[in-house]
């Protein structure tokens, strides 16, 4: 229904620049996930798009029309706020029905549809409660219900599932996605959940300090992060990063850690990145790294390694743990083709290896 475009959008509080000449395109009908460290300007961007925050510079366009000066209600947007922002004086049902009532839907109709939405979010039994009598997760679901009851041109979700348990989160995520897909509504979605970011999105925008660090398909970003920052930010546990040299199929750090890297060309000075899942461990009495700590995550485990001065992590199948007691020595190697190299000066990705 609507293509959203940020054109050199900028936001200042006083003299502090919070969002800095950001260009983003949110294609019509797509779901774009916005990720980035706490305080990087995600909520601010959404709020500018919603019309709640004045834009200090640049343009925001919906379907080619500049909407900078438009009132929020004229932008045809629905939003789930990070802090829920429920109406404290209205019941759950009235909260959910509010957007319909505001746009002149008949009361009975609005309440009926709100009841359907509440049911679909598992709030069916709570509809006559006031927000203060709800748990955190229930409040968040009310906020979601309020957003999805309408069919706006654009959906804005600011960490909409952060207070839901894993099971409910998957279900609700699915519900949201279905609605968004079915109605073809352009959606912008802020989340801190890596899984959410990876699985839901058509596109992913990684922000850092008010700028776009990288944008693209999530699997692309995961596979080819364009900087050390993106590389460590996307993916959990985070990518291992080491500075050193590559020669003779092995990477060596100044402190002496050694990782086998196959047939990678030699580099004098390079930053090497390897995801924990791609770091394979082979127990060996002459291994250069030592198992420091093992965290069990169900089917897999995170193995923390001391390799000289570097601390590395590797994810291994729980089944392989028997060979990896704490203190065991291991040799390190990188799964073929899973190596990331960055320029030590700019920290940007080096041309493909």
């Amino acid at each position: 229904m609507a293509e959203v475009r940020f054109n050199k959008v900028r936001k200042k509080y006083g003299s502090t620049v919070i969002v800095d000449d950001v260009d983003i395109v949110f294609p019509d009908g797509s779901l774009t996930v916005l990720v980035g460290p706490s305080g990087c300007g995600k909520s601010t961007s959404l709020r500018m798009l919603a019309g709640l925050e004045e834009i200090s510079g640049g343009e925001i366009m919906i379907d080619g029309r500049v909407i900078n000066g438009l009132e929020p209600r004229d932008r045809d947007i629905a939003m789930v706020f990070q802090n829920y922002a429920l109406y404290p004086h209205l019941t759950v049902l009235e909260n959910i029905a509010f957007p319909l009532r505001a746009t002149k839907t008949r009361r009975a109709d609005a309440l009926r549809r709100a009841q359907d939405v509440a049911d679909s979010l598992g709030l069916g039994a709570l509809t006559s409660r006031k927000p203060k009598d709800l748990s955190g997760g229930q409040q968040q679901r009310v906020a979601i219900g309020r957003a999805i009851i309408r069919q706006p041109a654009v959906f804005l979700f600011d960490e909409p599932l952060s207070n839901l348990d894993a099971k409910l989160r998957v279900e609700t995520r699915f519900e949201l996605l279905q609605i968004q897909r079915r109605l073809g509504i352009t959606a912008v979605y802020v989340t801190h959940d890596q899984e959410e970011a990876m699985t839901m999105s058509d596109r992913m925008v990684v922000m850092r300090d008010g700028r776009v660090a990288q944008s693209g398909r999530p699997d692309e970003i995961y596979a080819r992060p364009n900087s050390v920052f993106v590389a460590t930010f996307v993916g959990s546990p985070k990518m291992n990063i080491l500075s050193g040299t590559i020669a003779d199929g092995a990477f060596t750090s100044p402190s002496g850690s050694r990782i086998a890297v196959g047939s990678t060309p030699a580099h004098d000075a390079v930053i090497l990145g390897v995801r924990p899942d791609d770091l394979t461990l082979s127990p060996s009495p002459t291994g250069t790294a030592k198992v420091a700590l093992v965290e069990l995550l169900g089917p897999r485990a995170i193995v923390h390694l001391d390799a000289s001065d570097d601390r590395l992590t590797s994810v291994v199948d729980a089944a392989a743990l028997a060979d990896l007691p704490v203190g065991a020595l291991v040799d390190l190697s990188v799964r073929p083709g899973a190596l990331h190299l960055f320029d030590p000066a700019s920290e940007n990705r080096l041309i493909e290896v």
Partner: protein
Amino acid sequence: MTRRTNLWSVARALLLWVAALTVTLPLLWVALASFKSPAQLNDPGLVLFAPNLDNWARVLEAGVLDAAGRSAMVATITVAISVVAGSMGAYAISAYKTGGSATRFGILAAQVLPPAVLVFPFLTMAYALRLDTTYIPVIFAHLSFVLPVITWFLIGFFDAVPRSLEEQARVDGFSRFAAFRMVVLPQVLPGIGAAAIFGFTLSWNDMFYGLILAPTQETILPVAIAAFNTFRGVELGAMSAAIIIAVVPVVIASFFIQRRLVQGISGGAVKF
């Protein structure tokens, strides 16, 4: 931003102008009157005239300034007591729905009863306790209506403060009272400021209790102002001067109080 917004801001400005004029024009008339001679007073249209200071001299000689000082003292003491006791009471009522209707509304009784009926009991009390040469009876009489008003005034403001703030403070190791004083109270400062201003005006404006309960010879301001309403007519010029004396300092004071309080709190609560 849009045309609708412009329209609204024009309407808003217009409204404020009309309001400001409605407020100021009568006051301007009063201010002009304070510089008019008796003959000039009879001409409502007279704006340009040679100002004369007789009225002001008369007012100063009548001790209006002293009366204003006494009124300010009475009002300040009344308001200070009321703000302390009232904010505590309002909080108890708001947070804990304390006391049922009897307590909550009982304290308003003095607000309903005519002063004409209450003043004689006060007077009896003053004589019995031999306080009739002090301001204590006046202050007490003023407390009888200022305190309930301030208490009620603040209930609505305490209602708006999220309970979680107080809870957080209690978990942080504070007693309920400390939580109230250090966390809840600051959230309602604008309300307290407004309540104090209002309580002050109630005390500042009261003539009846002041007349009968204040020590002889030491009139308070409203009595002094009303004294210009004599059997031989209202001394409009002098009364106008006295009104200006009564209004200007309080307006200035409320200007600073409001500014401080609004700055002090800088916006509402977060995340609840």
